[in-house]
């Protein structure tokens, strides 16, 4: 049990390392609107939906923290919205049929919207986004919508891949 936890932690760190590397080294080079893809968010949603909600929350925290520290941002800037997103999606998925693609799509888009709204709010709070409140909401809403759609597009291959491997979700990792 303990060895499995350590293994899970190591794998989580490795995935976070890979995801943060992809986001910081590649995404900013994409042309618009592809540069709006948020690999941390996509990876968080994937882990919360397809692995386990607890795993998704932990993964979101590590990813967000790693990204914030690596980029010299305010620590918590990325981890708070990601953790919230993973938690809400993780809790909501019990209420819905996880086997149905529409459910999965709905959760993904909802998570994206939530993440972006919280993210932009924190940005405004720490002064990174010098916008008025209504502008902030408008910007957050537009970006969240775009990211939600892009997350759905990015999550589709992961979902299809998962469907080919297993017919049922695991309850937890160990």
């Amino acid at each position: 049990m303990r060895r499995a936890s350590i293994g899970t932690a190591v794998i989580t760190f490795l995935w976070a390392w890979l995801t943060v590397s992809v986001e910081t080294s590649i995404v900013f080079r994409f042309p618009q609107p592809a540069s709006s893809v948020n690999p941390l968010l996509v990876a968080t949603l994937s882990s919360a939906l397809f692995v386990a909600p607890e795993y998704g929350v932990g993964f979101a925290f590590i990813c967000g923290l790693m990204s914030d520290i690596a980029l010299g941002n305010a620590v918590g800037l990325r981890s708070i919205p990601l953790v919230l997103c993973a938690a809400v999606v993780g809790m909501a998925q019990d209420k819905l049929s996880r086997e149905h693609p529409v459910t999965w799509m709905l959760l993904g888009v909802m998570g994206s919207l939530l993440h972006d709204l919280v993210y932009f709010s924190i940005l405004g709070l720490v002064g990174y986004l010098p916008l008025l409140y209504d502008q902030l909401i408008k910007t957050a809403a537009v970006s969240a919508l775009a990211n939600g759609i892009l997350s759905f597009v990015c999550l589709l291959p992961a979902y299809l891949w998962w469907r080919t491997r297993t017919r049922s979700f695991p309850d937890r990792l160990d």
Partner: protein
Amino acid sequence: MRPSRSKLGLIRLTVVLLLISAVALVCFVKGFVAAEPAGRIIRTALYPLQRAFAVAYEGIAARVQLIRDYERILAENELLRQQVQEMRLLLVKYDEVAAENERLRALHDYSEQISYETIAARVIARDPHGWRDHIVIDKGTANGIAKNDAVLGSHGLIGRVVSASLNSSVVMLISDPQSSLSGRVQDSRSLVVVEGTDRTDGLIRFDCLESGDKVQVGDLVITSGLGGVFPPGLPIGEVYSVEKDFYGIADTGLITPASNLLSIESVLVIIGAGV
């Protein structure tokens, strides 16, 4: 029971992580936390993958860009090829004009050196099989040209008019086997007979009319004016080789014509000096 326990654990975990993040955020906003040591470690750990991804992305992006640009590059390449072809043609034309200009300038300079009335003419025809025999020029009797007028190249005598029509004339070159004229060695003043040959190297022959060693290699041979066809003093060529005649008395040998007879394109015709 199990789902509620699981959900409780999830909420507990979320709250703990959010609290940590929020405290860190507040500390950062207050300027309290300096995450530089952790940042250094994480950046060092991220560096290899970031670099690998960046290099891979740039490589892929460059190839994608190349594929995107392929059609444009093809069209541009075609256009450039056409332009290069046009430029080549222009360059050839330019070279031709420059060469013609050079020839005409040499003829003009030469015509100023001689004291006869001359007219410039362009070679318009030549027998490709009898390369050194006759040429046709684009000036004739309408321009004042008459039979036996002397014809000059840019450096000296090349022949004489053997037939003149209204707008063109036939010139027999001094290399023609039928050609024979009276010359003089400029230094020794000895008279020679200059004759055409059927040689293929462009050289013509001479026979000295005086006995003894009168001719040296490199001597300049000019027209004597005694034949009554050519005015005196026109350069014919330089002595290329000298030997004794059949009887061992007089000099004989070969002359290199002053003007290259193989590549004549423009000539000067001395008007009114012929008989």
